[in-house]
C-alpha cells in the first residue's frame, strides 16, 4: 500500500472515534502502529499466526470469510486484501456481520479505472498490479485475482448490506499530466451525463462518485462505508 494512501487513511481515522478495530489482512502491521493506543486492535493474516501489539491474532484465509470466534468491531480495515480473494462478497458479508451497528468498513485496493490502467488493459489485456502469476502463489507474491473499480466496489458493498461507499481523495488521485485528463475525459462526460439523467438521489450520488478524481485518476481506491440498518440482499443464483 502506497504511503500517500496510508496517510490519507490515518488522517480520515483521526476524526473518528472507535474502541475495537479489526485489521484484516494485517500484513506488516502498519495500521496498528498508526492507531497507537487509540483502540484495541485484532488482526488476521494468511501467513502469520501472531504479531506483537494485537489483542488477538488469527492465521486465517480471508477467502473463507472471518474466523468463527471473531468479535464485534467499530471499525474494520481491509487494506489491500479484497483483490486477493476469490469470493469477495462472502468476505464483505462477514465484515458486515462482525461490525457493530453504525460501524465503519474501510477497504483499500488497486484501482483499475485510472488512465494508465485502461491503456494497459487495451494493449496487454492485464491491469497494472495484476501480473500473470500462474502457479506462483507463495508468501510475498502479490497474487491479485479480483480487480476493482469504484462501480464494482459499489455494487458489492451494497449487496453485502453496507450503505453507499465513499471514495477518499488522496494526493495521487489528482491527474498530473494532460494526457491523463484527456484519456479520462470520455468517462467523465459519460458519468456526468448519467448523473444528470439519474432517476433517484442514490443513482445521482453513484454517478457523481464515479466521475470524481478518486475514481477516475486514483491509483488506489480508499472506500469507506457504514453498516446500514437494512439487511443484506439475499444471494441468488
Amino acid at each position, binding site marked *: 500500500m502506497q504511503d500517500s494512501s496510508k496517510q490519507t487513511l490515518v488522517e480520515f481515522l483521526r476524526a473518528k472515534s472507535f474502541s475495537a478495530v479489526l485489521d484484516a489482512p494485517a500484513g506488516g502491521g502498519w495500521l496498528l502502529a498508526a492507531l497507537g493506543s487509540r483502540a484495541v486492535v485484532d488482526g488476521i493474516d494468511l501467513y502469520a499466526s501472531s504479531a506483537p501489539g494485537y489483542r488477538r491474532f488469527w492465521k486465517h484465509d480471508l477467502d473463507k470469510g472471518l474466523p468463527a470466534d471473531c468479535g464485534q468491531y467499530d471499525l474494520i480495515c481491509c487494506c489491500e486484501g479484497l483483490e486477493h480473494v476469490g469470493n469477495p462478497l462472502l468476505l464483505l458479508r462477514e465484515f458486515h456481520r462482525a461490525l457493530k451497528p453504525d460501524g465503519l468498513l474501510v477497504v483499500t485496493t488497486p484501482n483499475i479505472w485510472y488512465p494508465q490502467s485502461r491503456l494497459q488493459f487495451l494493449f496487454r489485456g492485464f491491469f497494472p498490479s495484476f501480473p500473470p502469476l500462474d502457479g*506462483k502463489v507463495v508468501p510475498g507474491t502479490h497474487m491479485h485475482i479480483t480487480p476493482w473499480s469504484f*462501480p464494482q466496489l459499489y455494487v458489492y458493498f451494497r449487496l453485502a448490506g453496507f450503505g453507499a461507499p465513499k471514495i477518499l481523495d488522496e494526493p495521487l488521485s489528482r491527474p498530473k499530466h494532460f494526457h491523463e485528463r484527456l484519456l479520462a475525459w470520455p468517462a467523465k462526460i459519460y458519468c456526468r451525463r448519467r448523473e444528470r439523467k439519474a432517476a433517484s438521489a442514490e443513482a445521482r450520488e453513484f454517478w457523481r462518485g464515479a466521475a470524481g478524481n478518486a475514481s477516475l485518476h486514483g491509483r488506489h481506491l480508499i472506500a469507506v462505508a457504514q453498516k446500514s440498518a437494512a439487511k443484506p440482499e439475499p444471494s441468488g443464483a
Partner: protein
Amino acid sequence: MSTENIYATVMRLVDAHTQHEPLCRHLDIGAGSGRLIELFRQKFGAESSACDYTGQLMKLPGQKVDIVNLNNEKLPYKDASFDIVTATEVVEHLENHRDVLRELHRVLKPGGICVLTTPNILNLNSRLRFLWFGYWNLFGPLPVKHSALYSTGGHINPISYFYLAHSLMDAGFSEVKLRVDRFQRSALPKLVFWYAPIRFFGAWAWRKEVRRFKTIDEANAPLVKATNSIPMLLGRTIVVAAAKPKT
C-alpha cells in the same frame, strides 16, 4: 445468454473429446431451456442431468431440473459422477466462480472435461469500451438498486480468459483449451488500426515480465500469449474446455 453459435462451439469441443473418451453422463449447469441437452441427446445419445437456479425455463418434456443456488450450495451429485460438465454463460453471474469450479472438478470423472463459456472482455470492442467508459461489453453499468442483479441479466463477475484459466488450474484441471464462438464483424475495422500497437506494446510488456519481473513461466506462457491473439481480439464469447487429469 447462450446462442446457437456458442452451443455449436461447445459441441465441437465435446465432439473432439469423445473421439478418445466415452460420454455416457453429462451435466449441464445453468441448463435454461434445455437446448444444449437436446443437442447432446441428438448427437451423442447422452444421459443429461440439468441444474439451474429455477426449473421454470426448462422446455424439454420430462427433463428433471435440480434446483441449486450455486452461490451458497454445493452440487447435489456424488464425486466422479459425470463424463462431461457444461456451464454456458453461467460464471459471469456467480459470486464465487472458483468454488463452483472446484465443485465441477469434484463431480467429474477422471479424464472427463468441463466446458465453460463467458462473454469475452478481452475483445477489441470490450477493450475500447473499457478504455473510454470504464465498462466492458455486457458488463454494466449495473443498476444501483439492483433487484435484477441476480436475475439472468445480472453479470456481476467479469472474468478474462487468463483468470478463468487460472481458476480452472487452481481447481485441479489441466489441458485448458480456448475457442471463441464467432468473430465480431464490428471489431474487424478496429483491428486494422489497433493490431500493430497491441502487438508492439504486448511484446514490450512480455519482455519486461520475462526479464525483470520473472512472472512468465512454461505454465502461464500460452495463456499470456493467447491474451493478444486474433481470436481473442475478435471473439464475442470465449469457450474454454479443461480436463480433469486421470491420475
